[in-house]
């Protein structure tokens, strides 16, 4: 074992830094022991006691820096001294300039950032209500992405927000656009003069994207959370949302998106529409046209229709719009390719409202459409792993997501099911959505391409045509490449639907037999 010392005369470092460097020096490969210290009598005494004394160390003075190393070979020494030198030169380099101050509570973040005006709460449901309450108490509008929040908490929070004149979007609200900024799961759309209040995330996304495609734009998209229009909650957020958009100078037209509200809530909403000074387009998926029209609302049966009505009310020139009518020759063509036993639609969706819309389209012509989100229990899927006749699955529903991220982020559950459906000889068409925008998967189509190609090959080997409809919910402004996503689908032989509405209608029309 050899001991070598390196003395740097008249080089001062404080003892704490040197202790720290010594600690690191002792971790260098091949170093048996190392001390880096100033040459004070006390330090030299320590070096002597641990067998690191050399004549150079003996001679060093209190203002000299001593680096002394014990190691096996000459080579190891060289490496050790090089590494120690690096420790000296590496200190403090590469550090960023301004410190990113961290806050642990909403109160302290607000105190130090008084301009804050919105909180996004996305923590475990057990703690979410507490944080939302703090946000409201600090005069922040709230978007609550968290679910599993009790309905009592939801009511209390919404009442508090209502009193304070704040938004309480959610719980379980995944989509909003505020000040032209997408929050959580939303698309990049043009700024414009149409405001949306939506109880359904993907439904609102779809309408905002269609408005964008028609050349219109959005002022605000307010999410309410899925339970807002239930009896217990009473539509507090939707009513406040309509009021806020009515008061908003930029907004000319208001669009409401929801499943049909509970009857008592529907009454309140219709009353609100009646007194609203701005035109209100209402898309309550499966809603009652008569009542809505009677209240002065503009009824829309489907999503594209809702967007179209909104842009026309906002002043768009109808003759200049491409309404994207259904491609009739394509429908004829697909019908001839399908064998008589290929009768069923299998809709595999990541967006709940997209699923709902496709199902409603099918229900108009078939009485055997089943789904995990069917409102009529008779048409609820008996076994979530097995399809029956026409089947529409919302993979974002709790029973499919347990312990996993939402299918807009994690395609795995839907991918497995896709392969299962592709093997079923009674399937005529599989229809799927691919949602783009903030929060969503960076390449949702890409994640499905290998499976799609495998499925197509399999069907071909079995001598049947497998029709797949893909709908890409997105805009050219989204972080993902919209065109590229569509081109990927087309290249894999998938039929591209231009909207959620068309996807549902095409799927239905493809499998209508012998009319």
């Amino acid at each position, binding site marked *: 074992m050899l001991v070598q010392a390196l003395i740097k005369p008249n080089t001062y470092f*404080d003892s*704490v*830094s040197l*202790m*720290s460097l*010594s*600690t690191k020096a*002792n971790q260098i490969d091949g170093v048996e022991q190392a001390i880096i210290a100033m040459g004070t009598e006390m330090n030299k005494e*320590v070096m002597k006691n*641990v067998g690191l004394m050399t004549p150079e160390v003996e001679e060093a003075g209190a203002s000299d820096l001593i680096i002394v190393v014990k190691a096996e070979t000459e080579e190891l020494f060289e490496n050790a001294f090089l590494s120690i030198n690096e420790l000296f030169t590496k200190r*403090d380099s590469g*550090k*960023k300039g301004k*410190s990113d101050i*961290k*806050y*642990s*509570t*909403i109160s302290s*973040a*607000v105190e130090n*950032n008084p301009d*804050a005006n*919105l*909180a*996004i*709460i*996305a*923590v475990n449901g*057990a*703690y979410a209500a*507490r*944080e939302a309450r703090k*946000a409201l108490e600090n*005069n*922040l*509008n709230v978007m609550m*992405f*968290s679910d599993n929040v009790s309905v009592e908490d939801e009511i209390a929070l919404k009442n508090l927000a209502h009193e*304070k*004149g*704040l*938004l309480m979007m959610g719980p379980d609200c995944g989509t909003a656009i*505020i*000040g*032209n*900024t*997408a*929050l*959580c799961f939303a698309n*990049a759309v043009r700024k414009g003069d149409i405001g949306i209040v939506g109880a359904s995330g993907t439904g609102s996304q779809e309408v905002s994207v269609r408005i964008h495609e028609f050349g219109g734009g959005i*002022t*605000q998209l307010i999410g309410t959370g899925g339970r807002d229009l239930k009896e217990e909650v009473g539509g507090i957020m939707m009513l406040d949302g309509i009021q*806020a958009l009515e*008061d*908003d100078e*930029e907004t000319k037209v208001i669009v409401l998106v929801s499943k049909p509200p509970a009857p008592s809530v529907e009454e309140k909403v219709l009353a609100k529409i009646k007194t609203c000074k701005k035109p209100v387009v209402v898309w309550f998926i499966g809603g009652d046209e008569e009542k809505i029209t009677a209240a002065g609302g503009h009824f829309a049966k489907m999503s594209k229709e809702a967007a179209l009505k909104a842009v026309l009310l906002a002043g768009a020139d109808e003759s200049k719009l491409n309404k994207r009518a259904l491609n009739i020759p394509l429908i004829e063509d697909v019908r001839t390719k399908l064998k008589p036993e290929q009768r069923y639609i299998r809709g595999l969706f990541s967006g709940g409202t997209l699923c709902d819309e496709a199902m409603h389209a099918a229900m108009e012509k078939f009485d055997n459409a089943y789904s995990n989100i069917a409102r009529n229990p008779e048409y609820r899927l008996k076994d979530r792993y097995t399809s029956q006749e026409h089947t529409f699955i919302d993979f974002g529903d709790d029973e499919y997501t347990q312990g996993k991220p939402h299918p807009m982020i994690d395609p795995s559950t839907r991918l497995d099911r896709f392969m299962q459906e592709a093997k079923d000889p009674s399937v005529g068409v599989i229809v799927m959505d691919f949602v783009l925008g*903030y*929060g969503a998967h960076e390449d949702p189509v890409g994640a499905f391409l290998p499976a799609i190609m495998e499925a197509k090959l399999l069907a071909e080997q079995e001598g049947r045509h497998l029709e797949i409809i893909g709908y890409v919910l997105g805009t050219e402004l989204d*972080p993902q490449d919209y065109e590229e996503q569509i081109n990927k689908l087309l290249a894999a032989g998938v039929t591209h639907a231009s909207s959620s509405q068309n996807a549902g209608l095409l799927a239905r029309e493809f499998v209508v037999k012998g009319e």
Partner: protein
Amino acid sequence: MSKINELFKGKPNVINVGIESFKEDLAKQGAEVIHLEWTPPGRGNHALIAALDKFENPAIMQKIEEANKLAVERIINSHPILIGYDQAINCVPGMTKKTILHAGPPITWEKMNGPMKGAVTGALVFEGLAKDLEEAAELAASGEITFAPCHEHNCVGSMAGVTSASMFMHIVENKTYGNIAYTNLSEQLAKILRMGANDQSVIDRLIWMRDVFGPILRDAMKLNPEGIDLRLMLAQALHMGDECHNRNVAGTTLLIQALTPYILQTDYTIEQKKEVFDFVASSDYFSGPTWMAMAKCALDAAHGIENSTIVTTMARNGVEFGIRVSGMPGNTWFTGPAQKVVGPMFAGYKPEDSGLDIGDSAITETYGFGGFAMATAPAIVALVGGTVEDAIGFSTKMKEITTTQNPNVTIPLLDFMGLPTGIDVRKVVQTGIMPVINTAIAHKEAGIGMIGAGITYPPVEAFEKAMLALNENIH
């Protein structure tokens, strides 16, 4: 215009709680966004969350806020003055010849760790109660010796904190509230009693401190009727780059400068006086205990205020970490296991040689300096990860769990922000942020001494227990 319509006017300014990718998406769109460093309050424990909720009930919250306001006022307005030095037997309340005071919450001889046992046996030999360490250990186990926490006798003790009858003490009086705090003298660094060393060189030094050093300081201060304003001196030392727990270069210079004229006027020999100056110069730790007594003096004045959730003591005995809270009067301790101290070590020692966190010195952090004032001491940032950024981060983070800032003692680097003052049990439990403590590392075995320095944190259990007790007490 309603707040909702104000929100519509521009890009939202967002506080994001939970999923971090939402923050990134917002930043990409050019929105202002702060991502909270969030953890479930009370570590998700229902009883603790219920207690936090109860304390947010407006009527109860008002009581607590008022009590805490009073507590921090008393900490801030306390004006501790060093008025003299004397032997413990002459000044410390309840001191007897067979009493040994120790750091931290109560502990029995059997349960003491290596360094504390080393210090106790060394002190018994020093006091002449045992002829050697072996006999001292027998005596300590015999039941004849009264062991008690320093804190329960108006004292604090650094590291093992072992304080015996004939040791000289600082006497610090609170000019505002009249209470007095004590602590013994620095033995300077490394192989010393308080670190668990106890060989003849250690005993000899204690004897010299008893017979020469202590009397000179005592007699010097007798010539200074004004006393020495420790709060002012602390503020100066912090402006000179100390944090006054692990770095005491400036504070020691200021203190000995204040003492020197009086030392010179005493009747001791030039040689003895030179010994004193040499001893003080041998380590910058001389003023370390002084700041502890100063902090103790201020915090005792804030103890025992009904409904207050302010921490008045953090102290460790090497086995347990204990806290006391203003609203739980007297000697009510809340404890959890003492933690490891992480930091650079003297050459030749490894982390596994370290004893657990020990000493009453965390009284400095309880007041608001030490680890809380890391940003005043860029010279020792190696202790906390190596950069000035890290140091500033520690100081700003402590604002999250404290009640106010002390305008009398400030941090230049943070635009003269006052020391984060008044650790609030509620905030610690709510945020999961633990007070940061700068401290020394003693060898785990008796007889060796100091082997490094670094940072540590209290165990969260101590604060959780305090929270539940406060919940019982505050209605």
